[in-house]
């Protein structure tokens, strides 16, 4: 026989969330994965009714299950947590017979799996995107170099100064195209990662935006000052965040205001999160939330592609550059939007002392 402590250890290390309910549907046990899933501390909740944990019709199902005495699985159930958040899970209920009838419930959070799948697809797309842009950039820049050079040589031959106007146009437009291609390529160099305080970056962006916006918006700072230093390229991260916040600012300014424009800059730590198959113990989350009109549904899927913009005068490069910088920091950048609330969530892993 194995010692009891081993069973306990196994439960503690499971990735599946496991809870145990007694005959009155009160919580008898929850493992750490369940604590993480429900964002609750198990110790505090032992003995509490299951409704303290989440709201779903487990109860009615469970009564029948007690009677039937056989396991039951439900797919894609939506559980509403007590603080309002909803999670989508598959769960299995197994009645345990014995002196005390008990219910063992295992949860598989599928929104997490869906999110990981979506994130991976996003990272793969943006990688393919970069390869395409790089290839295209090379093919465009070479002939442009020839074009510009030929115009310069032609200008030298022209004795009539009035004709220089023509070659000037060719040269200027060639330069304009080259600048466009350079900006599409994003940062020229790989990030120079150094330990930095994330609030240096956020505050710098906040001050720049405040200077640009003046009284047009209210900037709300909601920082967690205890966030450890992150490994990042300060200048590049400022650029990435600035593009996002400027985007929020422009969205607010360009829409007829029903209420005062507001941008919230929020920083938090996040524990145990997977970005593109890599698991991180600790991450830094920066959220940029604006109360502008929201991103039109038809461009939402493509906002991180170069040249996609909701504004007629937008270059459509800002968010694509931000995303490319964030990916080079092994982080993720996501967006969800509805009218009145658009949220960009930037995650950057924090390396702990063990180098994990």
């Amino acid at each position: 026989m194995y010692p009891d402590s081993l069973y306990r250890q196994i439960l503690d290390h499971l990735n599946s969330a496991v809870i145990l309910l007694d005959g009155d549907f009160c919580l008898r046990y929850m493992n750490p994965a369940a604590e993480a899933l429900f964002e609750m501390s198990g110790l505090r909740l032992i003995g509490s009714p299951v409704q303290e944990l989440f709201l779903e019709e487990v109860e009615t199902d469970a009564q029948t299950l007690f009677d039937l005495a056989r396991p039951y699985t439900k797919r894609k159930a939506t559980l509403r947590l007590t603080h309002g958040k909803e999670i989508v899970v598959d769960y299995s209920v197994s009645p345990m017979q014995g002196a005390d009838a008990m219910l063992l419930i295992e949860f598989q959070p599928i929104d997490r799996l869906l999110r990981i799948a979506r994130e991976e697809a996003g990272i793969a797309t943006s990688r393919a995107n970069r390869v395409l842009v790089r290839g295209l950039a090379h093919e465009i820049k070479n002939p442009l170099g020839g074009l510009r050079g030929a115009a310069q040589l032609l200008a030298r031959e022209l004795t009539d100064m009035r004709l220089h106007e023509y070659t000037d146009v060719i040269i200027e437009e060639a330069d304009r195209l080259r600048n466009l291609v350079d900006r599409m390529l994003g940062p020229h160099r790989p990030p120079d990662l150094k330990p930095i305080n994330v609030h240096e970056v956020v505050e710098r962006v906040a001050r720049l935006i405040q200077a640009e916006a003046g009284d047009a918006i209210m900037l709300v700072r909601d920082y967690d000052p205890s966030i450890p230093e992150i490994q990042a390229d300060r200048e590049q991260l400022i650029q990435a965040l600035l593009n996002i916040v400027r985007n929020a600012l422009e969205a607010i300014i360009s829409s007829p205001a029903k209420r005062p424009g507001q941008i919230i800059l929020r920083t938090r730590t996040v524990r145990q999160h997977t970005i593109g198959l890599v698991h991180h113990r600790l991450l830094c989350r920066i959220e940029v939330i604006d109360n502008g009109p929201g991103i039109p549904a038809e461009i939402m899927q493509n906002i991180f592609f170069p040249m996609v913009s909701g504004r007629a005068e937008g270059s459509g490069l800002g968010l694509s550059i931000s995303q490319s910088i964030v990916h080079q920091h092994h982080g993720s950048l996501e967006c969800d939007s509805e009218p009145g609330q658009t949220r960009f969530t930037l995650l950057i892993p924090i390396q702990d002392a063990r180098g994990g």
Partner: protein
Amino acid sequence: MEQRQQVWIVDDDRSIRWVLERALEQAGVATTSFDSGDAALRRLKREHPSVLISDIRMPGSDGFALLAAVQQEHPKLPVMMMTGSLGCSCCRSSS
């Protein structure tokens, strides 16, 4: 006997070669062009120019491979490298 200044131009892009040829010829410098590093390396076995100008990103032997071969066989030959792409792959030391 003074040998006439010869500049070799190595670039896979026709329009860039054309511009360099014309610009140098206008300055009275004779040029020979190659569309690949390999073609230039073959010719280098028989003769060599006063200066060699090469693109970096090319199919076959790229500019760095050409530079390494030239430094090996003709350490005194001045080489100018040029590129239109500032990608990180080009930020290598040419020692």
